[in-house]
């Protein structure tokens, strides 16, 4: 791998410079502050970019132009919207449970932050390399639904409550499929650490190396994770045409922005996981054949950060494509889909993958 593009040189340099200046504890605190700030900036920036991207993509699917008034190509539109949301009055409905009502947006916002902490976007561009990275992400992402559930209840609105209950029933069941699809790939990667998973794909992405079961696992993961992020066609929690706005009917201003932003950051998280598990994270496109050495070498010259974000963008685009094409499912159909189709298929696929891993029948 080309060492020029490794971010650890940069981060290591900063660490050494700081260590020369102050005590280890102070270095640690300083670094934590820097990283925290950067993470918040990153999330805010990605939120703005993704919201704009969603609106533009939706517009092109629908033969519209999308935002094009504020800034060139409408690039500042989301910023303007964000400022508008910031300046709005924060209203709490009269008989809402104020503590829980105000807490819910933060719980929802917390989980993508936690998950982003362990995701490597480029070589060295990772806050913490945990040896159970994938497991950690599934663990924290299961908490996000609590925010929706609590927010839906605390709003004291029947539509919100229905939305929250739907979301809880849905996320709790789809978590199984997400985890199983991830576990299917973990059989191949033989590690839970995200950086090791990426490293195992230096000679080819798992979706190519793992062929049939990997492809099935990818489709299953994509479906289940779309459902877990509450996006269309699984956006039952908000279900505009049935529940007006679902669980965030009563939220306004910046609290609404939190719910809104968390959906997009969650999308980024699940797309990153898909990228890391199936498309080799920031690994360049390599073919696992002898004759492809030259080709592999050329691919190395494209920086890892481009590969990483390029693939994430692709997965996000797929999810947007789903959202802007399909009608919404009904709650019982969603649960049917999970328990009668995704879960059995996942289990069979898991078995298939285990057999393939045992027999060594992968590239």
């Amino acid at each position: 791998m080309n060492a020029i593009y490794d971010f650890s040189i940069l981060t290591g340099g900063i660490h050494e410079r700081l260590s020369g200046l102050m005590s280890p504890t102070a270095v640690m605190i300083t670094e934590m502050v820097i990283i925290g700030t950067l993470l918040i900036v990153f999330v805010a920036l990605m939120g703005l970019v993704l919201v704009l991207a969603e609106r533009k993509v939706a517009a092109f699917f629908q033969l519209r132009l999308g935002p094009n008034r504020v800034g060139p190509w409408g690039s500042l539109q989301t910023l303007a919207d964000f400022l508008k949301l910031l300046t709005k009055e924060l209203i709490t409905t009269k008989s809402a449970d104020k503590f829980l009502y105000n807490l819910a947006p933060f719980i929802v916002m917390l989980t993508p932050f936690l998950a982003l902490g362990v995701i490597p976007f480029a070589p060295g561009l990772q806050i913490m390399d945990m040896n159970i990275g994938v497991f950690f992400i599934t663990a924290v992402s299961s908490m996000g639904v609590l925010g929706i559930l609590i927010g839906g209840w605390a709003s004291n609105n029947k539509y919100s409550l229905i939305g929250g209950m739907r979301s809880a029933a849905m996320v709790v069941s789809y978590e199984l499929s997400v985890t199983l699809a991830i576990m299917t790939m973990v059989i191949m990667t033989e590690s839970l650490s995200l950086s090791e998973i990426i490293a195992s794909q230096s000679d080819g992405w798992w979706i190519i190396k793992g062929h049939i079961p990997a492809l099935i696992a990818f489709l299953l993961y994509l479906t289940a994770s779309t459902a877990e992020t509450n996006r269309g066609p699984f956006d039952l929690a908000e279900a505009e045409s049935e529940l007006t706005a679902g669980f965030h009917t009563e939220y306004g201003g910046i609290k609404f922005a939190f719910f809104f932003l968390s959906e997009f950051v969650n999308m980024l998280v699940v797309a990153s996981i898909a990228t890391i598990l199936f498309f080799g994270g920031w690994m360049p496109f390599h073919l696992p054949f002898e004759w492809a050495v030259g080709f592999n070498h050329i691919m190395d010259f494209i920086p890892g950060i481009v590969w990483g974000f390029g693939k994430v963008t692709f997965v996000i685009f797929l999810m947007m494509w789903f959202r802007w094409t399909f009608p919404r499912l009904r709650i019982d159909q969603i649960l049917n889909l999970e328990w009668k189709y995704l879960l059995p298929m996942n289990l069979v696929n898991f078995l298939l993958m285990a057999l393939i891993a045992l027999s060594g029948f992968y590239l």
Partner: protein
Amino acid sequence: MEQYVFYILAAIILVFSFMTVTSRMILRAAVYLLFVLIATSGIYFMLNYNFLAAVQLTVYAGGIAVLIVFSVLLTSQLNEKMEQVSLTKALAGGLIAFAGALLTILTIVQYNFRPNGLPELEPSPRAIGHAMLNYGDNGYVLPFEVISVLLLAAMVGAIIIAKRPAKLLNEDRTAIDTSYPSDKNAYTSRTKAEIDSLLK
């Protein structure tokens, strides 16, 4: 540094545990419990025992807490405050809790902790996996499998209990006239004569 983090986490656990049992609003109590569970996993993280911490998050914070909130939402007295506990009950409960705490603290203080001399196990998921399915020394395959069977039995039992006699959800739906046959996959236009013949 680590000490302070521990104190903070311990304080969170203590305060929110107390609030959980004293809160008179059932859903808030559940949310306080969530904080306790998260702080507990924080302590595991501090001990560098990532796997257990993640399990704590998945099973307790993500699973149990969600289920508790979910089932709390299904109870009927959700909007009312729980009744005030009577003084005698509170006293008795406090006394028992105090006695339990005293006993635990005494035991811990009196016990002479010393290193056991065993080699340090690397808490990697790989090692845990090996230990789980190992039937030699330090192997846990029997408890692992027994627990699996137990969980399966519990699940089957839960399904049996939850399964109501097949009752139509739309029982009070006005009876639909089924006098004409319905071919669900056809949906093609028909002439009036065809419909008349279907009706006969």
